[in-house]
């Protein structure tokens, strides 16, 4: 078999990982504050369809991505109002967002269903770096957002672990009563990070559409990536830098089916290979569920719990 193909597969895996990293970091920021937002899949779909429609109307890449971010912010705001202000069940609210986002993206995307993407995020050519054999295409043939995302993960990690607001954020997820006693508004910390997370998820959807998607199709665009991102949060142990490694690994399982199909390698039927990312994710979840692994992970202690001062 052609070794070039596998180099390209690795390169594609790293590229796809961009959307996973963005969505996962969005979910990490949200969950660190103690809010669980299961609506990732819905936000990704809305981000993707928004980028497509705005791109189709204006042919302006930046405006398209900006609108995806805004849509992500809007949906996360709905989640924040429901779960933080109105103290609704976070799981059900997230699921409602998924259903709403799935329906709405299908509805407003119907007129452009099957149309090919209007604007494209082009990969950069980094001169000599991109020409290095093997390493060049794998590491230096991506678009600007991939590199910005890596930098973003680093910034996010520093923010969480090295800054005062990061400390407050972590404390809000672990011991909201303490944060409250310090005179910091728990609701405000949660609102800000849920919305920031939504912005990243919206961008993840928009980027995926314009960089990886070929045509808009509600059924085939994100295809469960949002749920994989949620599993990645556990895999990354709620730490942004680890999300990069996990995302590349999961990106590989997402890309392999296409490589095998493209190369006409038929060891397994394509439908079975399509199960790979989900089965792999499930395996990882199982492996992380052993009591020992659980101790090492350190999930935010008050994840999913609304904070009510009066009831204490």
């Amino acid at each position: 078999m052609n070794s070039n193909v596998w180099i390209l597969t690795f390169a594609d895996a790293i590229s796809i990982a961009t959307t996973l990293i963005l969505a996962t970091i969005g979910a990490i920021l949200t969950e660190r504050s103690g809010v669980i937002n299961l609506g990732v899949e819905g936000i990704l779909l809305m981000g993707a369809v928004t980028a497509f429609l705005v791109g189709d109307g204006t042919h302006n890449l930046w405006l398209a991505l900006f609108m995806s971010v805004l849509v992500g912010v809007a949906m996360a705001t709905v989640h924040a109002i429901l779960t933080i202000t109105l103290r609704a069940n976070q799981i059900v609210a997230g699921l409602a967002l998924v259903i709403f986002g799935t329906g709405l993206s299908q509805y407003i995307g119907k007129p452009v269903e099957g149309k090919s993407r209007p604007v494209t995020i082009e990969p950069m050519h980094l001169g000599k770096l991109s020409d290095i054999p093997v390493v060049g295409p794998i590491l230096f043939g991506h678009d600007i957002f991939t590199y910005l995302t890596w930098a973003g993960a680093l910034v996010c990690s520093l923010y969480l672990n090295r800054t005062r607001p990061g400390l407050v954020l972590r404390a809000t997820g672990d011991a909201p009563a303490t944060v409250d006693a310090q005179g910091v508004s728990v609701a405000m910390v949660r609102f800000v990070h849920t919305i920031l997370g939504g912005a990243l998820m919206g961008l993840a959807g928009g980027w995926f559409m314009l960089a990886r998607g070929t045509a808009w199709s509600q059924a085939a665009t994100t295809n469960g990536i949002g749920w994989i991102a949620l599993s990645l949060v556990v895999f990354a142990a709620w730490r942004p830098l680890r999300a990069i490694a996990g995302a590349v690994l999961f990106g590989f399982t997402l890309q392999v089916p296409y490589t095998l199909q493209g190369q006409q390698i038929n060891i397994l039927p394509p439908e079975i290979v399509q199960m790979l990312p989900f089965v792999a994710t499930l395996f990882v979840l199982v492996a992380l569920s052993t009591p020992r692994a659980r101790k090492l992970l350190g999930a935010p202690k008050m994840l999913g719990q609304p904070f009510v001062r009066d009831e204490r």
Partner: protein
Amino acid sequence: MIIGNFRIELEPRLSSPKWLYLAVPAGSLVFAFIVGGIFLALTGHSPIGTYGSLISHGYTSSKGITNTLGLATPLICTGLAAAFAFRMNLFNIGEEGQMYLGMIGSAWAGIALAGHLPHVLAVPTVLIIGAATGAFWVLLPAILRAKLGTSEIVSTLLLNYVALNLVNYFIYGSRGFFRDPTTSFPQGRGVEETARFHSFGTSNTYPTVIIAVLLAVALYWFMKRSNFGYETSVFADSPNTARYAGMNATKLTLSVLLFSGALAGLAGAMYVVGPAGKVDPGLLQIGLGYAGIVVAALARYNFVAVVLTAILFAGLRVGGASLQISSNPVPIAIAVVLQGSVLLFALGGEIFRRNRLRIRRVQQVSVAS
């Protein structure tokens, strides 16, 4: 919160008045229709005309209501499946995949076993095997949840995608057992005639609707009266209390999740003995499993309310489908937008059921100069 001269406060209610149990869902429905109307208007459709057509095709015409009841039948089952797990604070969101497996299992029974059985036995056998395969699909997440505490939310969800590809494999990817061997067109092999119900007259409603409704009533009664129902409610309210009282959490979790999976599997089986009669990839397009979760949440996990909500939602879907065939077709996804919005508003409305909204005038304290 203070706005101007008024202080807005939420006061917890000790008990909610009965009318609010109806007013909150009804209000959510109205608000959802307003949101849907905005999107309809923005995309160049008349909201009033669209809703009028949706209601007449979904509920008020005789063809509409029988179509709706037919679609509601499996939806009642997936709704019951979600509600049953919710009752113990377990979130089975894999009804979609469990339903596919139920379809596969019951189609297998309908092809392989039904020919050897009389009609009175064939249909129940097919239904039971469908339920069993549905339960099988939740077995792994259930064990993980019960033994290791792995979140069942993501694990059940991931298996939906595996099940989806499995159905595609049986119909499109292989020429195996489930594929109709008589044609090159990819479609399922028909089950034996003895394994199928006849619909009522020329309608699309099947006797399975009676089974689904009876099941809801039976579950309602069972969870209210039985020891099992009592234990799950104690466990849902306070896992620690349940443990101190000597209730077996592992066993309860396993049985609740497996039974939930069986109910979702039954939805797939009812699709086979009713309208489909084979493994039909058409089921993958409808999303009855996901809709079941919305139905359960909106019915606030009350089994009898699930029936009514399922009929309401099926009507939206049936009415939505009819909108696609007009001079200015409205995408059927409007039905899903409405479902999602109803749930979002209902979640928000809960706080007004649990709390009383008080608006008081704030006494201005003027500082004497």
